[in-house]
Each structure stands twice: as structure tokens, then as C-alpha cells.
């Protein structure tokens, strides 16, 4: 039995990893996974770097930023398995949402929410108020790119018209309550936690912005992938079996129960079950907003690390001004996503080239991975 130390952040999308470790899927592959709960993405990256962790549940954009050496020392990571797609939402303080309702835009649509928010921000600026502050959990995260996309679609400059800050998930509720921030884009369960606490309202679910967005991946150090390819293949197979199990509606209650344990998420199982189902209460009183793709754990090839998703992440980094475009970096970003390891582990033939927008952009410029430079020239800076 090979023991592996794997880190995770207590979020709903650690589900597949936790199921693999706790429900026997790893044992079947001759692996024993010791799960290590971590408090920051920086810790995850650093512990994988120095080898205290063999791998981790990690933000896909952080795995890429780390491999490119953006903002930190270069730590080459590889992602042979996508743990989920989607799972995020945008939550706003009640007064902001009420002001948006007053604009008359259709708040049941993503674009409507973006336009209403844009109007509210401009109206406040005209009245001489301080700009609104929004938070995400890490600079290199899909949450950041989603929020910036929404702001840009509302006609705003995310760096000038509003303030974007990082607030760790455990502090989001208090920060929203105290008015330090006016809204946030984070992963499940933190939107629901803020709603349950009565401090905010869910305005938009992630898949209403990008229908098929990369989120967390299994990240391992490149030297581990190099040194122990067989162990890595076994880990991918264990995660695959766990993902298949986790996706099934019949197992949802058991999965929610497992995740609710204090060692993992420490939240009521019924709240977690709603996330897994894609039915979120937007206010304390209820008012559910539903989307079957809210959190995708397995189906439709979600676990296969799609290099086009890595390209999208890289493009959003450029769009956000986190780096400047270079074809070499674009290639290197794509190489972090190791579909070859995934295919090899599961014994499947490489998929043919797919067409269309791999992230299913709901409004604004569709993503075209075939021509990154052209996409970047067309898309609004965000």
C-alpha cells in the first residue's frame, strides 16, 4: 500500500478527492490517501513544492500561475485530473442587489445582472460615493476571472471603477456584514453560508457566466509525475472511480453526509446536498436559483484535463493584466493540463479535436482557443 499525503481546502469541490480517500476507491488502487486540511492556497502550493504534500486539490489558475512563475517562484505543477467544473457564485450585499432591482434590468439573466451592476456602480460614482469593493479568494482563480468578466460586461473597468481584494473564505461573511466588501465571487459552500447568515443574496451562479468553466484540479509537482508515473496513474484511476460515484444522484445524500463531517467541511449535510443538486437558496427565506451545471463532478468528460481550458485560463490572466501574452507561455500553460496522463491511466484513446467554445461563454466574446491572439484582441479587457 503506497501512502500519499494530499492537501485540500474545505470546499464542496474537494468532494471527489475526499470520496476517493474515504470510501475505498484509493485502496482499490493500492493507495492510502492521508488528507491534510489546509487554510490557504499559498500553503497548498508551498507544501506541494517542498514535498510535504504529494499532491493537492488546487485552483486550476494557481497551478498554471505557479508553473509559469507568476507572482512567485516557479513551481512546475501538472494537472492530470480535473476535480470539477463550475461550483461558484456571486453574492451581493442586500442594498446593492435592491439598487440593481430598481434599474429595471432582467436579473434572471447573467447579462442583465452585469448591466444592472454597471449602472449601480456608475450611479454611485456620480453621487461621489466610494467605489464598491468585491472579493475573491485568490488572485489566480476562476472566481477572479468570472467577476472581472461580469464587471466588464457591465461596462466597468475592474481595476478603476471598483476595488477587487482577496478575502479568505472564513472571513467573507463577516466582511460582507461589516461593509468591508459589498459582494464576492467564491466557490461553494461560501455563498450559501453568507445567505444562511442573512448577510447577502446570491445574484448569479457561475454557469450563468461561463457554462463549463475549469475550477479545481489535482495538482502534483512535475518531479513526482516524472518519478512515479505508475502511482500517478493509480491516483487518477481512484479519482475517476470516486467521481463516477459522486456524480450519481443516488449517492448524493451519502456524499453530503461524508462532506459534512467536522474533519472536512463541518457544515449541515442538507446545505451541502443542495449544492450538489445545483439548487441554491438566494436569500435566507429561500428563493432558489437552479442550474443543473452548478457543480459538475464527472459527467460529459468533465474530469479530463482539457488543454483548451488551460488556454482559457492563460487568456484570462492576460486579459486581467496579470501577465503579458507570449506564445511560449501559452504553450507552457497548456502543458500543465496532462490529458495524456489521464488517457493513459484510464486506457482510453485520445479524443479528437473538439470545436466550439470550451468554456461556453454565456455573454460577451466567445472563447476561441484556436487563435488566442485574435481572441485577446477582440475581447474587452477585464
Amino acid at each position, binding site marked *: 500500500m503506497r501512502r500519499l499525503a494530499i492537501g485540500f481546502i474545505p470546499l464542496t469541490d474537494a468532494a471527489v478527492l475526499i470520496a476517493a480517500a474515504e470510501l475505498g476507491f484509493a485502496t482499490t488502487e493500492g493507495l492510502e490517501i492521508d488528507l491534510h486540511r489546509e*487554510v*490557504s*492556497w*499559498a*500553503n497548498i502550493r*508551498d*507544501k506541494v*513544492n*517542498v*514535498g*510535504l504534500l504529494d499532491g493537492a486539490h488546487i485552483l486550476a489558475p494557481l497551478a498554471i500561475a505557479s508553473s509559469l512563475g507568476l*507572482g*512567485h*517562484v*516557479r513551481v512546475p505543477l501538472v494537472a492530470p485530473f480535473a476535480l470539477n467544473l463550475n461550483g461558484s457564485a456571486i453574492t451581493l450585499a442586500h442594498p446593492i442587489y435592491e439598487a440593481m432591482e430598481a434599474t429595471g434590468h432582467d436579473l434572471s439573466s447573467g447579462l442583465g445582472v452585469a448591466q444592472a451592476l454597471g449602472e449601480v456602480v456608475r450611479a454611485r460614482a456620480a453621487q461621489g460615493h466610494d467605489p464598491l469593493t468585491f472579493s475573491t*479568494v*485568490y*488572485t489566480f482563480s476562476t472566481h477572479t476571472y468570472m467577476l472581472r468578466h461580469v464587471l466588464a460586461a457591465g461596462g466597468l473597468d475592474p*481595476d*478603476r471603477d471598483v*476595488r477587487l*481584494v*482577496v*478575502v*479568505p*473564505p*472564513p*472571513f467573507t461573511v*463577516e*466582511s460582507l456584514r*461589516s461593509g*468591508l466588501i459589498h459582494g464576492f465571487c467564491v466557490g461553494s459552500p461560501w455563498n450559501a453560508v453568507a445567505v444562511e447568515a442573512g448577510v447577502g443574496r446570491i445574484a448569479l451562479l457561475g454557469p450563468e457566466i461561463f457554462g463549463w468553466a475549469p475550477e479545481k484540479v489535482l495538482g502534483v509537482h512535475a518531479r513526482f509525475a516524472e518519478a512515479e508515473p505508475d502511482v500517478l496513474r493509480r491516483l487518477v484511476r481512484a479519482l475517476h472511480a470516486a467521481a463516477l460515484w459522486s456524480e450519481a444522484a443516488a449517492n448524493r445524500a451519502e456524499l453530503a453526509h461524508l462532506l459534512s463531517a467536522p474533519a472536512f467541511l463541518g457544515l449541515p449535510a442538507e446545505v451541502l446536498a443542495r449544492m450538489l443538486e445545483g439548487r441554491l437558496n438566494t436569500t435566507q427565506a429561500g428563493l432558489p436559483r437552479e442550474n443543473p451545471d452548478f457543480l459538475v463532478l464527472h459527467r460529459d468528460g468533465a474530469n479530463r484535463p482539457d488543454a483548451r481550458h488551460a488556454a482559457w485560463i492563460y487568456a484570462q490572466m492576460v486579459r486581467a*493584466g*496579470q501577465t503579458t501574452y507570449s506564445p511560449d507561455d501559452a504553450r507552457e500553460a497548456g502543458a500543465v493540463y496532462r490529458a495524456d496522463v489521464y488517457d493513459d491511466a484510464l486506457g482510453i484513446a485520445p479524443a479528437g479535436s473538439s470545436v466550439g467554445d470550451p468554456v461556453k461563454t454565456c455573454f460577451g466574446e466567445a472563447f476561441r482557443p484556436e487563435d488566442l491572439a485574435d481572441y485577446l484582441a477582440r475581447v474587452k479587457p477585464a
Partner: protein
Amino acid sequence: MTNDPGLKIVIVDASPLRAAILEAGLREAGYLNVMRLAEHSNLLARLHAIDPDVILIDLEDPSRDVVEQMFQVSREVKRPVAMFVDQSDSSTIEAAIEAGVSAYIVDGLKKERVRPIVDMTISRFRAFSRLRDELEQTRTALEERKTLDRAKGILMKMKGFDEEAAYALLRRTAMNEKKRMVDIAQSVITAADLFK
């Protein structure tokens, strides 16, 4: 010693004791400009206001991700911050992470100027966790002693033993069952509670 007394150092640590120990160490080493932040709210704005040269942060503090936001060159940030250790410093990264601390410095600050600060931080963090372990051991020992005393009291009362005989019985039983005395004592207490 060639330490820079003027370097502005901020310690972000929710443990006031450990932060105080580190601050004292840095002051002894000649650093005069040391500040402690224990409160998380609005950390970024406060760091901007202080404009530190070096930030030392506890690894168990979720606010590390807030500090890392400062890496991003944005209009709001005055001086970008980068982790002290670069690729050539992997042993320092390792030592720091294992000790449970992380260090950030402003871009452009020479490594040699920061090295003594980081070394001091690592050694104080290690010393603190040793202290905490010892404290934990002492506390456990004290609790075990209390458990033994209670079990002895029960045996003395129920079987009319004197203290020595009660102790001898606990020890003999522990040896026979290949268990620790404290476990036998706990069983005695549990059984006595059941028979109450």
C-alpha cells in the same frame, strides 16, 4: 552584527505569545521597527499603510492569500512583494514551511539583508512549537495523575485498601493486561460510574 535596524518588519500571527517571542528576538538582534498584527480585518489596507519591507506570517493563518494579492502589480499597490526565497533557496523554503512560517519581502531588497531575519523567525517558531509540545506533555501528565488519584480513591473506598495497596493493584492489573496504568484507572472510574 550587520543587521539593518531600520527595516520595517510586520509580524502577522494570531498567537500573541509567539508573536511576542519573535518580536523580542528581532529587537534583541537590533531591529527597532517591528510591528505585530493579530487582527485580520482589512489586513491589506493596513499593510499598505504600514508599507513594510518584510512580512512574516504564520502558516496557519488564512491571510497568507491576502498578502499574496500584493504580488499583483495593480494601481493600488505601491511596492510589489515577493517571497524572499528564490529557486536557489529551496532549503530555506523547506525550513520555513516545516517550522510553520512564511516570509515576504519587498521586491529588490537584497537577500543578505533579510537572511538573518528569516533565520531568526524560523528558529523562534521552532522553539515555540517545542515549548508548546512540552506544555502539552506536562498537561497530559497532570491529567493522568488526577485519573490515577481518582481510581485509587475509588479502590480505597470500595475495597478498604490503603493507598499503597490500591496503587499496587492498578499496577499489577496494568502489567497483566499489557495496558497503561492510566487506562486501567480510567476503566475503574468508568465502572464505578456505572455502578453508582
